[in-house]
């Protein structure tokens, strides 16, 4: 952790003063009069970004666990499809996946009357389900690979101890294997979650009104370019910081000596 004393170094003080001056300059000499008018939209956009981030990382992780497990210890008929999924997802641009789902799948669906008349249609005709699906797959693809390594990295003796006490397989997975695997890759997962955050602006390209889309909207409405972008950068930095802190906190719950 950074202590106050550690901040009180000459070179750090200089950096902080420069940054503070930059903020003051931004506040005083840039235009912010558009802000109140766009505030409600910005808050809605922020909410969209946040819930899509949380939902896709959670769903993606839930998918990554079986993907990793299948690759680490699964039989070939599970391991091969899991590996193929991860390879395809990791090997193609997210933007491409998003567009294939939205413009491809999304324009295929309306051709089937039974889909149009189904309960799901009110959702399938919107953009966000495709955004959620693409981002979930993306996270699952990358994290599936991470979890494969994580499951393999848990020491054999840890699982052997569990087995030697007659622990049923599911209990062992839930109580020993999964927690240790996740613990081993927490720093990676933290980093990947921040990457996931920074992948979310792509969904603006399929008409989902996230915080990035709001800043574009401000630009095209008012021709003010830098101010919305600067504010946008700040918003992403704050969210990334919160994610970093959250993972750091969880990591500290189990002190490791390495």
């Amino acid at each position, binding site marked *: 952790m950074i202590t106050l004393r550690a901040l009180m170094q000459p070179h750090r003080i200089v950096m902080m003063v420069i940054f503070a001056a930059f903020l003051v300059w931004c506040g005083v000499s840039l235009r912010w009069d558009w802000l109140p008018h766009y505030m409600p939209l910005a808050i809605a956009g922020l909410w969209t970004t946040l819930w899509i981030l949380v939902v896709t990382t959670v769903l993606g992780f839930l998918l990554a666990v079986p993907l990793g497990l299948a690759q680490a210890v699964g039989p070939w008929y599970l391991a091969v499809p899991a590996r193929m999924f991860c390879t395809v997802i990791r090997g193609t641009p997210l933007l491409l996946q998003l567009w294939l789902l939205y413009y491809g799948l999304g324009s295929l669906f309306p051709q089937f009357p039974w889909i149009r008349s189904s309960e799901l249609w009110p959702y399938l005709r919107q953009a966000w389900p495709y955004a959620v699906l693409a981002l979930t797959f993306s996270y699952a693809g990358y994290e599936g690979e991470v979890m494969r390594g994580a499951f393999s990295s848990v*020491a054999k*003796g*840890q699982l*052997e*101890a*569990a*087995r*030697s*006490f*007659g*622990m*049923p397989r599911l*209990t062992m997975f839930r*109580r*020993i294997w999964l*927690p*240790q695997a996740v*613990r081993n890759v927490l720093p990676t997962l933290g980093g990947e979650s921040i990457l996931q955050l920074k992948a979310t602006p792509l969904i603006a390209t399929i008409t989902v009104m996230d915080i990035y889309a709001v800043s574009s909207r401000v630009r095209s409405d008012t021709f003010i370019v830098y101010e919305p972008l600067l504010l946008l950068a700040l918003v992403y930095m704050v969210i990334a910081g919160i994610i970093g802190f959250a993972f750091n906190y969880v990591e500290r719950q*189990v*002190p*490791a*000596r390495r």
Partner: protein
Amino acid sequence: MHPSAAATSAATEDAREEAIRVTDLHKSFGSVEVLKGVSLTANKGDVVAIIGGSGSGKSTMLRCINFLETPSSGQIVIGGEEIAMRADGTAANRRQIERIRTRLAMVFQQFNLWTHRTLLENIIEVPVHVLKTPRAEAVTRARELLARVGMAEKEDAFPAFLSGGQQQRAAIARALAVDPSAMLFDEPTSALDPELVGEVLTVIRDLAAEGRTMLLVTHEMKFAREVANHVVYLFKGRIEEQGPPAEVFENPKSERLKQFLSSVS
């Protein structure tokens, strides 16, 4: 039929009930036959020391007893209950194995305490999540056991921050927490620095004195001689010689055992 681990210890003069019986156990890893028909019986209260050079199959034999290794063939009877095996030796009934394992606590060479849990959590893990003991009860019992192995102060410590001797003592407490009918020690002091061996042996010695049934794979000959009431010498997957410690150590009959004893002492 097969020679039993006989010699009577004072604690168990009345109870000669059979705890573990292994008959004609074979185990191959690929084309290498590690166990070539081993038979052994331990009665309640027996302390059986299993000695032998590296590669003699002693650890494999111990690990076959609770099916951490799958025997290739043979018969294993724990507390009168035979473990069902298929023709190829694999366990026929996973639930049966799991149930039997809860009665056979194992202590490992590498301790294998769960690294993501504190000592107290390590010890209550199996009672609470496998045996469904109420948590409060398990915690009380765990504290008693930690005190017993001299680790009461460390209940909130994580294993990585403890010495090998401390970890192994905690691992013994974890094994005791399931109230096992027999304990399997797989070279419990082999991974320890020499100065830490003593503290672990003291704990095991106490357990032997209170009449616990134990199978002990060890390189500590002096210790084996002191606590065991039956010693088994394995050589290349066969029992070369066995008997009471006094006989095996003082008066070995087999040439190989003589050589082995002179090489380790």
